[in-house]
Structures are given as structure tokens and as C-alpha cells.
């Protein structure tokens, strides 16, 4: 039995030395001091009085900025490429009910720029390399930055279509369509994805 235990423990030369050291160590271990900490658990919720210097109680007067995703404003009779910054004081149309209707069909500045463009391209590369999950992540990043950019939805729809998720592809196409204004090429692209 004794031998068995020894072998279970490991038969090395170390064993004998270990036992000797061990017996000795039991005697001296009390002499050695280690420092140890107090074991206190006191609830402390002060750890986090984060205050934001940015917050004031006075009313701010934010001015809407003019990023591409923020400007699906209507602009009368403009071409898709024309920038669509209508000023709030622009005169409303005063002619009959037909004309405003045509005018209201918005044009969208669909040319993606900067960050969004970079992400759309990155997603394209990832999709080409078969990294669909990464492509989705990139497109979602783009969607956060430009939630009104129809091309983001077009790419999301096409990616889901490629992944065999037709239902999802259609939903993204519908969303994109609702943002496509009167850009016929874009409308066509979305409609191809819809039944």
C-alpha cells in the first residue's frame, strides 16, 4: 500500500528529498512571515460619481449638422447628385397640389463618404473573402454611423441574400427602399431583392 501511494505520487528522486524538506518545512513554516491583506468586504458605492462636465442645465442650441446621412431633406427638382441642403426658411411651394407632390419626392445624397465609404469597401472585401460575419459587423458599424444611407441597406440586403437569408434580405431591401428617394437606379436595385 505504501509503495503504491509512493508510485501514485511520482517515483522520482524528488520524492525522498521532498519528504525531508517537507518534514523540515512543517517545523519552520510557522517562522516565515508573509504579509497578507485584510479581507474586508465593505460595500462601497462611491466608486463612480462620474459627472460629465458637458452637462449643463442651460438650454443648448444644437445646430443640425450636415453629414451625408443627415440630409435626406427634400430639395425641389434637384438631381440626385445635387447637394440637398434646403434652408429652413426656403419658401414653400404655393402652386396646386400636384406640384408639391412631385417636389416632395426626396432626392438623397447617396454618395457615401469617409468612414461609411471605408466600411462599405471593407465589408465588400470581407464578403469576397468569405468572411460573412465580419462583413456583417462592418456593415452594422456603417449603419450606426449612417442609418439613413440607403447603400448600407443595399449591401446588407445583398449580403443576407448571399447567405441564403431571404427574409432578412427583403426586410433590409424594404428599409433601403423607404430611404431611396427618387433615385431610380437604387429603387431598381432594391426591387430586384423583393418578391
Amino acid at each position: 500500500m505504501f509503495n503504491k501511494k509512493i508510485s501514485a505520487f511520482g517515483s522520482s528522486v524528488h520524492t525522498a528529498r521532498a519528504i525531508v524538506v517537507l518534514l523540515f518545512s512543517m517545523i519552520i513554516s510557522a517562522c516565515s512571515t508573509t504579509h497578507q491583506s485584510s479581507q474586508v468586504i465593505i460595500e462601497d458605492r462611491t466608486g463612480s460619481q462620474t459627472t460629465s462636465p458637458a452637462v449643463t442645465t442651460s438650454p443648448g442650441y444644437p445646430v443640425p449638422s450636415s453629414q451625408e446621412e443627415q440630409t435626406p431633406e427634400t430639395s425641389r427638382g434637384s438631381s440626385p447628385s445635387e447637394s440637398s441642403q434646403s434652408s429652413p426658411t426656403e419658401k414653400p411651394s404655393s402652386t396646386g397640389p400636384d406640384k408639391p407632390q412631385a417636389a416632395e419626392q426626396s432626392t438623397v445624397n447617396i454618395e457615401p463618404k469617409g468612414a461609411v465609404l471605408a466600411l462599405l469597401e471593407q465589408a465588400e472585401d470581407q464578403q469576397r473573402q468569405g468572411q460573412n460575419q465580419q462583413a456583417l459587423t462592418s456593415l452594422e458599424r456603417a449603419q450606426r454611423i449612417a442609418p439613413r444611407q440607403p447603400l448600407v441597406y443595399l449591401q446588407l440586403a445583398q449580403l443576407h441574400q448571399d447567405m441564403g437569408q431571404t427574409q432578412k434580405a427583403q426586410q433590409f431591401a424594404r428599409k433601403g427602399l423607404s430611404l431611396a428617394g427618387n433615385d431610380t437606379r437604387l429603387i431598381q436595385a432594391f426591387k430586384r431583392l423583393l418578391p
Partner: protein
Amino acid sequence: MAKPKAKKSTSSKSKSASSKRSNTKKSTWRGLFFKLFLVGCLCAGVLLIYLDASIRQQFEGKRWAIPAKVYARPLELYSGQALTAVDLKTELTQLGYRMVTSPKQPGEVSIWKNRAVIFTQGFRFSDGDEPSRLMTLTFSGQQLASVVDASGRAISLARLEPVVIGGIYPANNEDRELVQLSDVPQPLIDALISVEDRDFYEHHGLSFKGIARAMWSNIRAGQIVQGGSTLTQQLIKNFFLTSERSLWRKLLEAPMAVLLELHYSKDEILEAYLNEVYLGQSGARAIHGFGLASQYYFGRPLANLRTDQLALLAGLVKGPSYYDPRRHPKRAKQRRDLVLKLLTDQGHLSQSQATVAMAKPLSVVPKQRIVKGAYPAYLDVVKRQLRQEYREEDLSSEGLKIYTSLDPIVQAKAETSLAQVSQGLENHHGAKLKQLEGAVVVSHSQTGEVVAVVGGRDARYQGFNRAVDAVRPIGSLVKPAVYLTALSSPEKYNLISKVNDEAVSVKTENGELWQPNNFDHKTHGPVALHEALAKSYNLATANLGLDIGMGDIIHTLQQLGIERNVPPYPSTLLGSLSLSPLEVMQMYQTIAANGFETPLRSIRSVSTAQGEEVSAYRLQLEQQFDPGVMHLLQYNLQETVREGTAKSVYRRFPESLKLAGKTGTTNDQRDSWFAGFTGDYLAVVWLGRDDNQPTPLTGSSGALQVWADLVSGLHPLSFESQVPANVSYHWVDEAQGLISAEGCEGARYVPFINGSEPQERSSCSGSPGIRGIKDWFSRLFGE
């Protein structure tokens, strides 16, 4: 297993020993000695096996118990982003960046007016690495104008590392951040070995030299100044720290240290030590390991620490509370300098390096800047979702990384708005308003991502989370569902259809009469549908709802995303339905996102400790309503804010900013609600008392004030909505229900689903250039 067996064998041996005692006296002593020795060996052997097993179990098992770590969203940086220098500073402060004049190493930043130079720390995201780099940001107004790298090239997109907002801890509240030996800066290892265990690489678990040295210096000093424990012994001690601390344990410490050395290499032991050692206490959370301690004291990863900071951490081992650099900076500095001196004495540091290091201040970040545990309500929402999908022990031990969409900047503002405005309301109303509580939830209106959750006025309180658990009647917040149902039948209803604001009396199923009233206790006769919603007339809504039928309205509520069972009583029409603020947000999310239901998400993805993504919570859309019909409702909710019950909000916003929303007030003003959205944010605010007592607040005088205070600080984008193809705008004379023209008396510019507009024209042909009072919409929305 081995223990009981062994005991048995021991006793049988001693029995046989006693039976032999009656033999000759001569052999007695020798025999006894031999037997005692045998018994001793046996005991020792048994003990060894037992200790061995428990050590191995500790070492292999507990070594890797890492709480899941929860991250905020990483702040994206790109030209054109809505971000101010002040907000950037808030974020960087939470990340522990140091403000310097000229950033030279990761984790340093200089902000001067509208220019910021940041040396980022880099982060390994599950979708790729974000390198540590130096970049310059320029702000213009409320936008980030440009992001360029050190050589002046434009960076199209970068992201900062995400703020850690909490963890999911095991029952013993131990927290740690795992480091690998290869990632640990050499000066830390040198320092540790120099001060704690100079012979670490030579001894077998115990250092007699160390003990002798310790005794000698203790005797010389007349008190205990130095410990003789090896790092291995200290590791053993830390392993068992949570269980008993008896003499027995003390006696076993040394043999266990020897056993540990037999089984594992020096590097393995050192790595375990670096991750195991106790280094501080933050409330209930015990700070273990150098990885976490680095974050806790310096707000940055271990790899980015300077030598003096590493020396401070190494010095802390001796007594984390005695040398606490926050509470006892003087002691801590002395200790740090001692460590630096030892490093120099042993040749790890040159004299000049040591002089430079000793001249450094402690540079410990203030404790309140440590964000962990700062967002209990948001974390609560995250944990509820996680617990549905993961086992508790996996959450508290597998080191999972949980990426959420919390925006610390918005969260901080939401907390401040709720606290300050509630206090202001209490001050204003005096004795009539006491114990006011509240909740705020904020999401990105177009993505469904929850960015802030405030569960009460004391945002640090870990208890009752009103954002989720205060399920209260929603009052008029339900009304958009009634009007949306009506507008979904354009052949029957348009925005100028007449509804009767006249007394209602309905016999309910239990025989009682339901007789609602308007808030002003007046009736308004036939009113236009849009006006009834904007002014929140109860009687008009009740009549309209009863015309439509409860079935269709309940269906609409479900399409809007309400999962709770909705009672088919007429009182539901006026908001007897009880929902939590988060549920209300889901409902308005669908409205803000043009009829596309987007399930609210707080978690973006979960990955393993090694960075491999295990689940992603993807953006999902489901079109529930025709965008045209939703456009009409959005018009109506903008009218509510421009002309209706919420018009006071424009005292704080420029006219050009488009907002939409709805107030809600319940019986006896027990609940004050506002749900509203801008182009980018949707926020829902509830105010009321936990004991459900009346307050002097309406939705407009209470919750709306919090909302306005919050949203004005968010630099919101205008709510720009495209006019769908099936919608057209017309000037109408709503009193007569005729097509009119701009400039005619009472003319209003109103959207219609094509074909549902009035077919007859009024006699007025209009006088272009003269504006009606209510043409804000044509200026801001229609054109």
C-alpha cells in the same frame, strides 16, 4: 478519496504495532522507533497525496476563473461625427488617459481648445485589431472635423478602446484580468523578485536563505520588516485565502509550496502568482492580479505602465491596504522608491533611470474615475439577457467579453438630467412633491441600440431598476397606437377627419360604467383627428377607439412591439395598460424607425477570453407598418411637440430642429411620462413615486422637462423624414374639409396617403407669400 482509505491503513498498522509490543524488551526501542518512523512516513505520504491533489486542483482549476467583462461601445472617430472636445474628454477620462502637454506613449492625450492629440492604447476587437497610434483630432462646432495620423494623413475611421463598465463576478467577488507571462513587462518581474523572493529561480519552494535574511533583518530592526515567504508560498496562501486561515493551514503552506514546485515550472508558478495575488479592494470587489490592479490604480493596461508605476504595484504586494496609494500616498511612495532602489542595487536599473523614476509622481487615477460598477441599471439589463443564454458559472469564470452599446457620454448626461431636474421639481413644488423617483432609457432611434439606462435618481444604487421593473400605466403614451390604427385605413380616416370630443359612457364587462374625462374636464366637440392627438383629448380618443374596435388596436400595439398581454378593455384606449419604460421605448422605436420594428439590443456581441466571437446580436428589421401611414403619425407627433401638449419643449430648442413625441399623464397624476425622438436618439422618461401616490406633475410639467434637459445636451440631429412615394402634402381648409391654398385663412399643410385627400376645393385661391400661423410644417418638413 485517498484520505479515508489511508486512515484505515494507518490504524491497522498501529494495531499490529501494539500487538507486537509484548515481545522482547531489547527490540522494543528499536522496533518502536522503526514503527514510529514508518507511521510517520505513512502519515506524511498520505498527507502529501492529499495536499498534492488539492494543490493540483487549485492550480489547474481556479487559476483560470475570470469574471466576464462588460464593455461600453467603443467611441468611433471619423470626420463629420457629432462629437465635441468636451465629450471626448469625458470618454478619455473614463478610459484613464493622462492629460499631458505632448503625448509620447499610449494612454496620453493633450486637448487644447478644439484640437486633441491622442496616443491611443489599441484594442483587440473581435472583428480586428485597432492599433495603438498617435492621432490628431480637430473639432469644429459640435462636430469632429478631421482625424489625421502622426504623418498628417487622414484616417477615415478609428475607434478608441471601449470603457469597461463592469463584470459578472463569482460569489466571492474576486475580480481579475488575466495576463500572460509573455505580456508582463520585465521590470515588474524583476521588481517582484527583488523585493519578495530574491532566490525565486533557485529554490524549491522554500528559501532558507530568504528566511535567514528575513530573520536577520527583523532582529536588526527589532520588528518584522521583511518576510521570508517565497513567491510560491505566497501563491499557496492566496489560493487558500478564501477558506480557513488556521495554524493547520499555516503548517501546510510550506509542504504545499514544495509540491507545487515539483509539479510546475517556475514560469507557470510566476504567471499564476501574477494573476492570483491580492492587490486591493474596491467596495465588495477584491482586486486580484497585476492585470486588473494596473487598471484599478492607473486606468491602463499593464503593458503601458512606466517603470515607476510597475515598481509601485510590486511594492503593493506587501500590504495593499497599508500601502494603498490613494489613501496613504506617502507610504506608497516610500515603498515604491524602496523597490526602485532594490532594482538599482541588483543591477536591473541604472542609477540615472532610478533617479528619473523616483522623481515621478504616483500618478494613480482617482477612484471615482474607475467606471466599473458605475452603471448598475444598464448592467442589469445586460445581465438579464445574458442569464437567459449563459450559465452563471460560465459568466463568472470563463472570462467572456461582453460588448454592449452603452454610450458613457449619453449615460452620464441622462443620469445628471434625471437627478437635477427631479431635484428642481421637488424644490419648486415644495411639500406637494416628495420622494419623486424616475427612470430614463435612451436608444439610437434608427438602430434599436440601447445607449443609456437610468434606474432611479441615485444612478449608482444597485437595487430596484425602474427602467425595467417599474411597470406603470402609460396614460396617453398609448394614444399613437389608436391613431395609427385609424390612419392605417386611409379610406376611412385621414389627419383632418373629424372625431367627436364628446362624453363617453361604456358599460364594462363587470357591469361598471366607464366614463372618462378630458384633462381640462371640458368637451371640444368635433375636432380634427390630428388635433385630438396633439392635444391629447381623452374623449375624442375614446370615441375614435371605440369606432375602430379594441381588436385592431391591440393588434397595432403588438405590431409596435408590445409583447405583454393587452387587456381588451376600453380603458386601455386611454392608457390603463401598464408597461415599463423599456417596453415603452420598444413601442416608440418602431414609430421612430418609420414602421420598421427593430428589437432593442443592449449587447452587440460576446466573445471568448481569446477574442473569438461566440455570439453576435445582429441588427434585425421587420416592417410592420406602411411607411406612408407612419409618416402621417410622425407628422402628428411633431405637431404635438410644436403646437400640442409638449410645445413648451421648444423653449429649449431652435425652431429648425425637428422633434417628435408624446406626453403621458395617468389618473390623479401618479405617473408623468414623455417619449420622444430626434433624428438620432429616442428617449423615454418616467417620473412618479414608488408608492404610487399622486404627484402635482403632468407628462409635460414633469417627464418632458427631464427629456428636454437631456436631449438638449446631446446635440441631437433633426428628425428628417423622407416623404414616402404614397404620400403627398396639400394645403387644406380643415374646418370645411376642403383643399385650400397657401395663404388662405386657416390653411394647413397636411400629408395624406395619395387619394385620401379631400376632393373638393375651397373658394380661396390663396395669396402666396402670406403665411398662416401653422405653416411650420411646410417650412420645415414638407419642403
